[in-house]
């Protein structure tokens, strides 16, 4: 017969070992050792993913976006002159990175193609450990990448995307848009068009045949019809059509006295140039001067179209000639680094990077759900568009919108657009369930892992 005996010390040791054994799995899966969200940063750095068009039709725009992101990273890490960090109303960022971690970045090439953009975003998230993705120069790309970020659980801070769908039917909890949209362009432009061209006009639309073009056409047509304008025709044109002459010649005999070009980038440059070549601006129809409207302008696009933009109205998210303290600080910072003024794409991308970093700092975490909470209904100022609200209901920024006109006598190759009106935010705000934005559902934030 064997007897089992133990001392009090032995019992205590055994109990401790047993306790550790039971506790081990819990310790190993606790926040101290395992990531609680996708790409939770463990070291001294945090990686941002800049997904911009580096090739393709919007490559120049993408290059400007990348310049802005690099500038933002410098400023976040406390280098350079700080740019709009000094004017930003939130003072959470201290210039020592984000949450004490130095910001580093990886880049991807969207090629302005949805599939390529998703692939490069996935690579940045899965292989490079990007905590967030930002960028793009197309609504098609924005919608595609926003969907991916929602699936894998990172934040998407959209770059240049103007389609209503991005924060409308395709809105996502993990996606945020600082840029304005087609509805806001229509709301801002309509009163200016009325005061300059009257309320008795016949408009002809040429529209890029994809999500952005459709929603812009719908928005501008609704806004101008509300003025009393008649929409004579809406013609869809293939992306990258090059020569638009066969679409422009029918305008000549259509009875229309306004041509609205719902085109962007290279298509805009070509269609506007050719419309001017065909003498539309010298034409008189219905006893009125024929007019052309470009609802969405960019400085880079105006450079491509040259003198053809003279006197043509459009809208823009931001322009480097704005005289507020924040815009001037950004122009100075960007201009001194690169030798030319930033585009609106550069401005919105810089702002998105700063807004994301600030939200992390205020939330005290990089966890996407914490960041979503910090950004929703966040009110700020000092990023160049006056007081701004990141509306929680659809993650769309609401701020003043600029109506611009092609400058008659530009003083330099960059001085192509003049701001004719800063339309107050109240005039461009709409309800989250507005019919043009209906059908979307933010869902809930996804932290991934």
């Amino acid at each position, binding site marked *: 017969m064997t007897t089992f005996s133990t001392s009090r010390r032995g019992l205590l040791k055994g109990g401790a070992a047993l306790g550790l054994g039971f506790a081990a799995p819990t310790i190993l899966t606790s926040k101290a050792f395992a990531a609680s969200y996708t790409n939770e940063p463990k070291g001294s750095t945090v990686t941002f993913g800049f997904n911009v068009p580096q*090739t393709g039709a919007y490559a120049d725009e993408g290059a400007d976006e990348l310049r802005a992101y690099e500038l933002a990273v410098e400023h976040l890490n406390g280098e350079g002159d700080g740019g709009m960090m000094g004017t930003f109303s939130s003072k959470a960022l201290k210039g020592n990175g984000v949450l004490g971690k130095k910001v580093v970045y990886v880049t991807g090439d969207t090629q302005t193609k949805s599939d390529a953009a998703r692939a490069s975003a996935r690579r940045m998230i899965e292989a490079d450990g990007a905590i967030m993705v930002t960028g793009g120069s197309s609504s098609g790309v924005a919608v595609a990448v926003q969907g991916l970020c929602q699936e894998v659980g990172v934040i998407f801070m959209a770059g240049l995307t103007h389609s209503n769908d991005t924060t409308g039917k395709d809105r996502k909890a993990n996606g945020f848009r600082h840029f304005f949209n087609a509805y806001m362009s229509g709301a801002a432009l309509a009163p200016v068009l009325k005061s300059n061209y009257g309320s008795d006009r016949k408009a002809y639309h040429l529209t890029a045949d994809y999500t952005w073009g459709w929603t812009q056409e719908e928005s501008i047509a609704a806004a101008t019809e509300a003025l009393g304008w008649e929409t004579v025709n809406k013609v869809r044109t*293939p992306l990258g059509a090059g*020569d638009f002459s066969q679409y422009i010649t029918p305008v000549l005999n259509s009875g229309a006295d306004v041509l609205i070009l719902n085109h962007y980038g290279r298509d805009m440059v070509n269609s506007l140039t050719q419309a001017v070549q065909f003498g539309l601006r010298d034409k008189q129809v219905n006893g009125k001067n024929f007019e052309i409207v470009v609802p969405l302008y960019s400085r880079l696009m105006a450079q491509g179209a040259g003198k053809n933009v003279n006197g043509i109205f459009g809208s823009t998210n931001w322009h480097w000639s704005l005289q507020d303290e924040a815009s*001037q600080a950004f122009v100075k910072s960007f201009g001194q680094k690169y030798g030319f003024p930033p585009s609106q794409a550069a401005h919105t991308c810089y702002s998105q990077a700063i807004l994301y970093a600030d939200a992390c700092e205020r939330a005290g975490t990089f966890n996407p759900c914490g960041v979503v909470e910090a950004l929703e209904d966040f009110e700020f100022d000092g990023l160049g568009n006056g007081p701004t609200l990141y509306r929680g209901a659809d993650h769309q920024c609401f701020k003043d919108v600029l109506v611009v006109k092609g400058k008659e006598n530009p003083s330099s190759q960059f001085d192509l657009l003049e701001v004719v009106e800063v339309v107050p935010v109240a005039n461009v705000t709409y309800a989250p369930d507005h019919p043009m934005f209906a059908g979307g559902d933010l869902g809930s934030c996804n932290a991934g892992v």
Partner: protein
Amino acid sequence: MDAILLQILNGFDKGSAYALIALGLTLIFGTLGVVNFAHGALFMLGAFCAVAVNKLLSLDIVTLSETQTTAWGTPLEIRTPYAEVWFGEIGSVLVDYSVPLSILVAIPVMLIIGVVMERGLIKHFYKRPHAEQILVTFGLAIVLQEIIKAWFGANPIPQPAPGSLRGMIDFGAAVGFEAGSVVYPLWRLVYFLFAFVIIGAVFAFLQFTTLGMVIRAGMADRETVGLLGIDIDKRFTLVFGIAAVVAGLAGVMYTPILSPDYHLGMDFLVLSFVVVVVGGMGSLSGAVLAGFLLGILQSFASMNEIKQVIPGIDQIIIYLVAVVVLLARPRGLLGRKGVMES
């Protein structure tokens, strides 16, 4: 009727570009048997000859203003073109006429590019399958367009027509319509006339010169011509150069119609191949005929009245016609028997 006439004119414009590119493609295929997918890139390089000449003529002296500063606090740069500093009024005219003047530069440049391309790369693929020729020439096209993008950027660079040719012309009045009913950009008519002259010159060269006759003989029976002691390879290298010049000149003169960017060649390449196939592989007159025919059909298919009946027809009409033509006449409209059949 006015609308129809306008679309016919548009068709002639597009057709002119298609015909000029397809003419060079056919010339290369007919002589060398090479399917040159870099031909669109040659059109694009021609366009960038115009851009380069314009940039060269617009080179300027930069002085810093003592009184004005930029928005970012540095002294404002004041630019004065050298051409104006050195030649005054004549300098301004030179800049204004940079597109037609570019022809003088484009001819030797494109000839050299064509010859170097043929001797340096294409000749190594004469006896290789068409699939390999397509792959290597397509690769070359991508390399060329990436070089242009790296050098000139991705955005289109507008090249205005000379001031005196920039306006509109009352084409309707000239052909008996009501005055002002059909006005058309003057430069587009210039482009059509230019294409007509170039096509005529190529045909005249092949028809009436000794070298042209040798080339035609070589196209019909290369081996026999070689047996007569004629170095047909050298002649065919020249043909490649001429085809490059034709594509390049088409590109130079097209720049005021469509602002050139690095992707310009790819936009025209596929359509031009369809044109060649519809016209008949190896048939020069077929390429020209099909170029104009498809250009006009494409313009008509873009009319609202037609698009309302068949949505999207403007984007598929060329391929639809190609299918119909090839079903009814497999060798194309004016194709020779035996070509591509062995």
